[in-house]
């Protein structure tokens, strides 16, 4: 009986592992997944239910600790599919209601072609608030790049569109705080790849002290992967989180887009204890992208490494500066970067 090596985490997979599956990766995925919905919960919405006389509820698309998202068909108004987000039963506490309301306000403020659009909001028959959003039939940006086999310039141009979307949100005073490939979906449209930034559930208006307890819940129980989290997000103790935290997270996304891998193995981050995890994010140097892919130039290294600086002061000051630096690499006029991220600083 001979073991074989897992291509992802490189452990020796026991030959009698069911289905030949890597047991470490399997448990790692379970730990990363949201905790199962408590069985005693009644569903917030039921398939086939008509919500507010205007949406026929379809399958559940996903759920987090406090909300659930359903696909729904819009009745009238041109029809079409929408995503309905609603608080889970039992989560209609004052804190969650305030958070839900905050997300609705943020979505309304962040209206942009590259951000998920809010279409409607209301109250269910049970008295729970809901938000109707544009349904994005896309896939995570890193997956899109791999599936479409985009070349490096195409990946960078797609990334610039993401910067345009997040730059708009920053201009409105919004910090997303949870940027990662799964929250940047891409649809293949007639105008080329169309990114959409989704899930502003953790977003906040303006700089805001980080809440360590919330982050730990997020790391170890809900979201699972802390690799996109900026060093200052792990600090706690009143450290201010501003738009440069999102720049770091986007730097990590870009790292993955251009190399196809992450600088710190997600698996490793899940295995180490909390103290070591925080030390890695705060202190451990990020290997340059060219160390992962030899065909990348030093310019790409510089772009990514500047975004991933441990100290927020050393990063791009904003999405516009990030986009302008990409323009330089792509030989685009520098003004394009500023124009792409045109709303920064306007505070509209």
């Amino acid at each position, binding site marked *: 009986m001979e073991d074989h090596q897992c291509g992802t985490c490189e452990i020796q997979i*026991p*030959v009698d592992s069911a*289905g030949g599956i890597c*047991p470490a990766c399997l448990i*790692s995925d379970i730990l990363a997944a949201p905790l*199962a919905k408590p069985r005693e919960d009644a569903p917030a919405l039921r398939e086939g239910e008509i919500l507010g006389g205007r949406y026929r509820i379809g399958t559940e698309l996903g759920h987090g600790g406090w909300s659930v998202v359903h696909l729904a068909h819009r009745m009238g108004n041109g029809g079409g599919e929408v995503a309905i987000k609603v608080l889970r039963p039992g989560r209609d506490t004052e804190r969650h209601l305030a958070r839900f309301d905050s997300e609705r306000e943020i979505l309304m403020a962040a209206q942009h072609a590259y951000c998920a659009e809010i279409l409607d909001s209301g109250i269910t028959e049970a008295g729970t608030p809901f938000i109707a959003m544009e349904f994005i039939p896309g896939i995570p940006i890193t997956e899109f790049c791999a599936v479409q086999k985009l070349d490096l310039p195409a990946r960078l141009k797609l990334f610039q569109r993401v910067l345009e979307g997040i730059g708009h949100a920053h201009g409105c005073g919004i910090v997303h705080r949870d940027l990662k490939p799964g929250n940047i979906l891409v649809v293949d449209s007639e105008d080329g790849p169309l990114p959409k930034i989704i899930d502003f559930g953790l977003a906040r208006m303006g700089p805001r002290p980080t809440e360590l307890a919330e982050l730990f819940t997020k790391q170890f129980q809900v979201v699972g992967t802390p690799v996109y989290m900026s060093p200052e997000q792990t600090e706690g103790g009143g450290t201010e989180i501003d738009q440069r935290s999102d720049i770091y997270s986007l730097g990590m996304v870009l790292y993955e887009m251009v190399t196809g891998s992450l600088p710190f193995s997600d698996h490793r981050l899940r*295995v180490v204890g909390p103290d070591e995890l925080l030390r890695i994010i705060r202190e451990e140097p990020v290997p340059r992208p060219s160390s992962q892919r030899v065909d990348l130039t030093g310019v790409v290294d510089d772009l990514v490494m500047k975004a991933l600086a441990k100290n927020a002061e050393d990063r791009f000051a904003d999405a516009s500066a990030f986009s302008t630096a990409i323009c330089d690499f792509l030989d685009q006029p520098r003004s394009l970067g500023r124009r792409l991220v045109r709303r920064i600083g306007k505070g509209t």
Partner: protein
Amino acid sequence: MIFDLKDEPGGSEESRSKALAMLCENYWYPVYAYIRKCGRGAEDAQDLTQDFFYKMIHGELFKKADAGKGKLRTFLLTTVARMLVSDWRSRRRQKRGGGAAPLSLDIELAERNYAAEPKDTLTPEKLYDRRWALLTINSVFDQLRGEFNARGKSRHFDLLGECLTPGGSDLPYSEIAAELGLSDAAVRQAVRRLRGRFGELMRERVAFTVEGNAEVEEELRSLMEAFQ
């Protein structure tokens, strides 16, 4: 709960039987492998494993130890370790009622498996944890396969089961979709649901071996670390 094995008035006969069945059927090999790795021969390990579970079933070990605290996995390990340094061997046949064996051990298979265990620096404790983790995963995998079979969807499980981990299947989703007569999006959704269901069953199974739900995540991490 497994701790109903204790001689407590509150432990129902049904839960006790269920706990015993799980304990004996699922977890005898980690105990056997641990004993072998500690240097005992096959025959000796077989006797000691039988002794160990005999005393489990008859409640003697739970009376001796503070079984209500902590995880079943670590409780069994420390108990079997204590057993090995004690003087049980000389007394076991007499205590076990003249050699009555509580388990039907497939020692031939166990020896084949043991012969295939890594020969490197794996400690007895690490081997025990690794085998425990793998048994837990494999039994949940079988349970999930049973759910699919019951719905007449065994072929679905054959193809989707390999997608439980990213990169686990050699087939792209498009080929799985064609084979099952589904759309790519439906396969993607089915894989998501499968992973979610596996996670639920795994948490349920692990919850059975720890004291409270709060320990489930910690125990899952320990099971993952067993393979490092």
